[in-house]
């Protein structure tokens, strides 16, 4: 099978998986008790008013009609209207999603860059004190709760050193209205980004570092590592260009999946730093019974995972010439 057919087939599978995800989410959200009107009893003094609201939201229709309508909306890139904000969900969720992506991407890039280099070095210097201390430090970072790391960073960098702002993403609270460039490309945003991104980076660092170390230990047994040393190449070249380069393959999948999962946002990091992202919104919307928003949040998260898995497969083709598309 050629590369092309392989990619086409994977795209087809991708679509099928996404469709399954949407359907499952739809069913799940109709199964949970309560509806957007049941929470704010006070807002709907009379049953009639409440009924009117339910009809307005289309919740009185038979399930299959709702399903078809929902799917139809999705195909147009719409998630319906938020019961809470009384606005189209897409207008709320996409800017939040973008905030999350920017934060998590930054955190992951730091975590994977540092983690890979550090893990590779730990594997290379196996049995040394450097490796032992490194493993302990990594495990401590991994075992630490996100909020704890966040609070410590805030304490040091905000309250003691006064280097960074405490929370938010900068601007004047009007984050959602500003356009992309104005919102992200400025020094103030960068200052707001550093602490939450660093928190995420510390939390995410352990997986690539430890995995990298383990695969390095395997790869280092391979004959070619010895040959490269016999060739007289500098240790740095053998370590990073050859051994680490080979060890990175299994990490591609993990990184892609981690990215997918992280795009759902970290509820805790976003809460600690008051970051207007999709994770924070997901929790808020669930507690408000605001289905359309919650569904959209879950859907974005699931889609990220699925799409990133797809990306991992395709990346693998390029990184490992031995992979046959089957």
């Amino acid at each position, binding site marked *: 099978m050629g590369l092309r057919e392989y990619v086409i087939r994977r795209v087809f599978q991708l679509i099928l998986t996404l469709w399954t995800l949407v359907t499952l989410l739809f069913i799940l959200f109709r199964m949970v008790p309560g509806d957007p009107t049941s929470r704010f009893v006070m807002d709907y003094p009379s049953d009639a008013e409440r009924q009117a609201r339910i009809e307005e939201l289309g919740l009185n229709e038979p399930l299959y009609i709702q399903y078809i309508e929902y799917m139809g909306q999705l195909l147009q890139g719409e998630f319906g209207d938020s019961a809470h904000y009384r606005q189209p969900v897409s207008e709320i969720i996409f800017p939040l999603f973008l905030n999350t992506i920017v934060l998590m991407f930054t955190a992951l890039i730091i975590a994977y860059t540092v983690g890979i280099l550090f893990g590779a070095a730990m594997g290379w210097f196996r049995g040394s004190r450097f490796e032992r201390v490194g493993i302990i430090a990594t495990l401590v970072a991994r075992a630490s709760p996100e909020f704890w790391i966040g609070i410590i960073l805030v304490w040091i960098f905000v309250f003691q050193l006064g280097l960074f702002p405490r929370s938010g993403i900068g601007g004047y609270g009007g984050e959602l209205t500003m356009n992309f460039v104005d919102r992200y490309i400025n020094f103030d945003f960068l200052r707001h980004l550093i602490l939450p991104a660093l928190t995420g980076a510390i939390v995410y660092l352990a997986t690539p570092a430890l995995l990298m170390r383990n695969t390095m230990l395997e790869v280092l047994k391979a004959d*070619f590592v010895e040959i490269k*040393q*016999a060739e*007289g190449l500098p240790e740095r070249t053998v370590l990073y260009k050859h051994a680490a*380069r080979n060890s990175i393959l299994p990490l591609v999948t993990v990184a892609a999946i981690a990215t997918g999962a992280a795009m759902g946002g970290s509820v805790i990091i976003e809460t600690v730093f008051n970051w207007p992202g999709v994770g924070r919104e997901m929790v808020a919307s669930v507690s408000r019974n605001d289905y359309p928003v919650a569904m959209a949040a879950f859907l974005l998260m699931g889609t990220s995972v699925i799409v990133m898995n797809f990306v991992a497969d395709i990346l693998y083709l390029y990184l490992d*010439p031995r992979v046959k598309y089957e």
Partner: protein
Amino acid sequence: MTLLTIDGLQMYYRSDDGYVRAADDINLELESGQTLGLVGESGSGKTTIARSIIRLLPDNAEVIDGSIDFDGTEVTDLSDRELRKQIRWREVSMIPQNAMNGFDPVYTVGQQIVQAIRYHEKETSKREARDRARDLFDELGIEPDRIDDYPHQFSGGMAQRAMIALALCLEPRLILADEPTTALDVVIQDRILQTIKRMQAEIDSAMILITHDISVVSETADRIAVCYGGRIVEQADSATIIKNPRHPYTLGLRNAFPDIGDEDDDLISIPGTPPELVDPGEGCRFAPRCPFAEEECWEETPKPEEYGDGHIVRCHRADEADLLREQATEKATWDGMRDKVRQSISRGED
């Protein structure tokens, strides 16, 4: 001209039980352009000896004593950096047992050859390096365009040829070939070996050829050194090792590969197992398996003695070689040993 002189080398591995005496008092000389065959059973220290020359050894390896002189340079005194820049690959390259695993799977073979050339010859352009790789492929009987293939796209024999190209790309003065054909199909083993010989002659480099199989080196090597239990028990020019060996272990090895023995076609194996290399104690390490061992052999380590023209033997009874040679061709001699070994094993279990 003498290219390599190893003098009194002791290369041990640290282990929890103490030193593993993998290379013990090794003395070797190699003329430039010549081939030295290093034979011996598994675990006898062949790889350890060869790799000591380029210090390509695990972390727990330790040079206890001795010197390695490569063309006037004391290799054991070089810093890691000097060793990498001056000796490794530029002067001494190697061909591993399994070429398929000797290439990094994520780069093309050509990229890897070009990298080796350009690291040591900064002035060589990428284009020139590629051309050299193509020429080498051509000479080795591989389609030159295949330098752009990945290692897994090669068959075993072809990967081994590509490995030879890598080993020769800097025209080193010494090639360490550690069982270069063992991983291959029997049918092509000989052809690969001939190819190595031909290329070696062309660039006039010396070679240390490691093998279990004494018949392989009997045709290929100028000199043969026989390893047993971390020591070189006998060395001489190939003809002497084949025709007039003096050490009982060499005699036994010859029997085990009957196609080089002259009249007797019986395959006689040497009973017993290789010696323990941690705390082996005094005495000849072959004594427990030697049908000719006497009191002295158990108590005192035999020193290397020369028996004319570079024929060096470590055996207390090397003087009686004619007698031993005759008895060694008899199956009964070794069978008697088999019983003794069995007895000593069962005694040990009591």
